[in-house]
């Protein structure tokens, strides 16, 4: 699967992105709205200032008292003469950035506030305008007083507005900026806790073994997951049934083979006892041989299916006793073939080696383990020619208990080492009868005991099969 993502991060991410986008849009709207409101408010106050001035001043008064007015302005403006950012003690920082000019109809400057030094090329036209004066942006309002004909221009530094709008916008955005990460964290935590039943389900499914599938029992399953849980439980039930059926099938089939086989053997034996025809006897013996082979195959099949089902409980077993048992079972067979069959086990009798003794104890299904080891020994005896050597060893290496079976037989070619473990695989031309199931049973035995089955060339010239168990605590 290429698309591997976490639902939690994905939902959090998307929420975060869409939220940021929404906030961005809302900030722009707030900014625009604030700008508009501030503009209206300031424009209105600009107009009001103009009208107040207009109401106070008359052309006559200006012309008569020009010098007095200028002096008065200069005096009063002294503390407001520049555009320092600091507020005057009794004022406000926004108040300073205002100016006014009064022009005569023939466009001569009559009066101006002191803080404007250059005379901008004003366009004498009533209404609002944005101008650049002294390199600064100004918002100006021009009024033509008709009663006492003069032009009055009132201006205000634009950056007051900008600053105000910025402040309003910043106050709007700042909490949001703190809020977003908190929001993301909360969402992430909520989703995570929301997905908890799903995680429980995953943990439960992971824990399942193929041969013991259990329905999950998660309390308070949310409706979104309950369907999945039901479906999984149903699947488990079906799987478990079919697994059991498959296991039973092999064992049932093997059982069903036994009756006809028994009948075949009985009838052949019966005929053999009374047959006095040499030719018939030879054929009957062949039939009997085939029947016995078939019966061996059926027994191996049954053993394999039993090993796969692994229904037997494990008990504490000393691996050395398993080796003795297998040795006893097969020693006569090896002797019969005139093979040297040796058993190499280090016995520790003194109490100091008690710990060493403990290392040989494993949790095992005795029947299956004996069957596995004797299958390996039986193979060794069968494939090793008369006069050959077979060696069964049990020892501890790096705390791992080992059981090895070595022989001086033909061994297994490297290329076939994996294949020989397949069911019904037989090396062609070996000339030995067999079911092709022996090593599958051994493999199952190894799996069931968490042991590793290794097939290597032996120093004796043939095969070395090793059972390496886990180190015992």
């Amino acid at each position, binding site marked *: 699967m290429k698309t591997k993502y976490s639902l939690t991060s994905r939902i959090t991410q998307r929420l975060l992105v869409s939220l940021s986008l929404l906030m961005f849009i809302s900030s722009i709207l707030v900014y625009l709205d604030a700008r508009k409101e501030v503009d209206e408010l300031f424009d209105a106050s600009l107009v009001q200032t103009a009208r107040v001035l207009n109401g106070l001043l008359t052309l006559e008064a200006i012309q008569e008292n020009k010098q007095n007015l200028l002096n008065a302005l200069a005096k009063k403006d002294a503390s407001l003469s520049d555009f320092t950012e600091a507020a005057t003690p009794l004022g406000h920082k926004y108040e300073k950035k205002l100016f006014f000019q009064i022009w005569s109809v023939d466009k001569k400057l009559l009066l101006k506030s002191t803080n404007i030094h250059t005379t901008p090329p004003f366009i004498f036209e009533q209404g609002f305008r944005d101008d650049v004066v002294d390199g600064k942006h100004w918002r100006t309002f021009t009024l033509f007083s008709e009663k006492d004909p003069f032009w009055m221009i009132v201006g205000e530094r634009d950056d007051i507005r900008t600053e105000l709008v910025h402040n309003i916008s910043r106050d709007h955005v700042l909490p949001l900026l703190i809020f977003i990460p908190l929001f993301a964290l909360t969402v992430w935590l909520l989703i995570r806790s929301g997905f908890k039943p799903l995680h429980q389900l995953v943990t439960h499914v992971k824990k399942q073994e193929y041969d013991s599938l259990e329905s999950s029992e998660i309390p308070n399953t949310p409706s979104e997951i309950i369907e999945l849980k039901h479906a999984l439980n149903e699947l488990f039930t079906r799987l478990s049934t079919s697994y059991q059926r498959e296991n039973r099938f092999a064992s049932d089939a*093997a*059982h*069903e083979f*036994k*009756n*006809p*086989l*028994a*009948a*075949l*053997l*009985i*009838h052949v*034996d*019966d005929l053999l*006892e*009374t047959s006095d025809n040499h030719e018939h006897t030879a054929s009957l013996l062949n039939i009997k041989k085939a*029947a016995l082979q078939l*019966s061996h195959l059926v*027994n191996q099949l*049954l053993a394999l299916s*039993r090993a796969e089902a692994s229904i037997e409980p494990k008990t504490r077993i000393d691996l050395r006793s398993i080796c003795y048992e297998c040795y006893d079972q097969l020693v006569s067979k090896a002797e019969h073939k005139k093979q040297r069959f040796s058993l190499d086990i280090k016995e520790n009798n003194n109490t100091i080696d008690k710990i060493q003794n403990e290392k040989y104890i494993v949790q095992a299904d005795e*029947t299956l383990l004996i069957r596995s080891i004797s299958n390996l020994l039986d193979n060794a005896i069968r494939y090793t020619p008369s006069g050959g050597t077979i060696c069964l060893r049990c020892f501890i290496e790096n705390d791992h208990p080992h059981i090895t079976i070595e022989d001086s037989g033909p061994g297994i070619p490297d290329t076939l080492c994996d294949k020989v473990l397949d069911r019904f695989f037989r090396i062609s031309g070996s000339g030995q009868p067999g079911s092709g199931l022996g090593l599958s049973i051994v493999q199952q035995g190894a799996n069931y005991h968490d042991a590793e089955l290794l097939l290597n060339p032996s120093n004796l010239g043939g095969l070395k099969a090793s059972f390496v168990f886990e180190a015992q605590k």
Partner: protein
Amino acid sequence: MRILLVEDDELLGGGICKALQKEAYTVEWLTDGKLALSAALNEEFDLVILDLGLPSMDGVEVLTALRREKCAVPTLVLTARDTVQDKVAGLDAGADDYLVKPFELMELKARIRALSRRSLGQNTSVIEQGRIKLDTSSMEVWLDGDLVVLSRREYALILEFVNHPGRILTRQHLEDIIYGWEGDISSNAIEVHIHNLRKKLDSRLIATIRGIGYRLNEN
């Protein structure tokens, strides 16, 4: 010796029947568990060969019921189930021996002989009773050390006498022993066999108990 064979597989049952009859055993063959139970309880058998997988009543149930009714007939269990647990369950239910399918005829016969020996308290296959010596494995009979050639039915009769020395065996019992249920016996068939036995062995060996049956004289 009369054997009750309970086996539902036609081929196997037929084979066992045929092979055992050759050994001078009288074999009654049933394929149904319930019928087998009532037959074993109501008639006298020297041995029961019981398959465990049976219709209508499982072999283990038959065995349990038999033992509950204090019927001590030696029982050899035949089964396809070969795990240790199965064997233990069978033996605990009262089986005397256990044979896993498929088996060879020789082994079956040897186990039957061993079981009947055990039930009669004998240690070997050779039984000696007075002047008669009998080898159950080779089916040979000697009188005073001389080999006597007997027919299958004659052998079955003398075996029954030797196994129950001094006991009066009824004609009905002897008929059951050598003919079983299927035999179409003429009214004096037993007399004919007894007559032949007396001729081949010694006329004084088997005494007639008038109106009841026969008895092997112990000396």
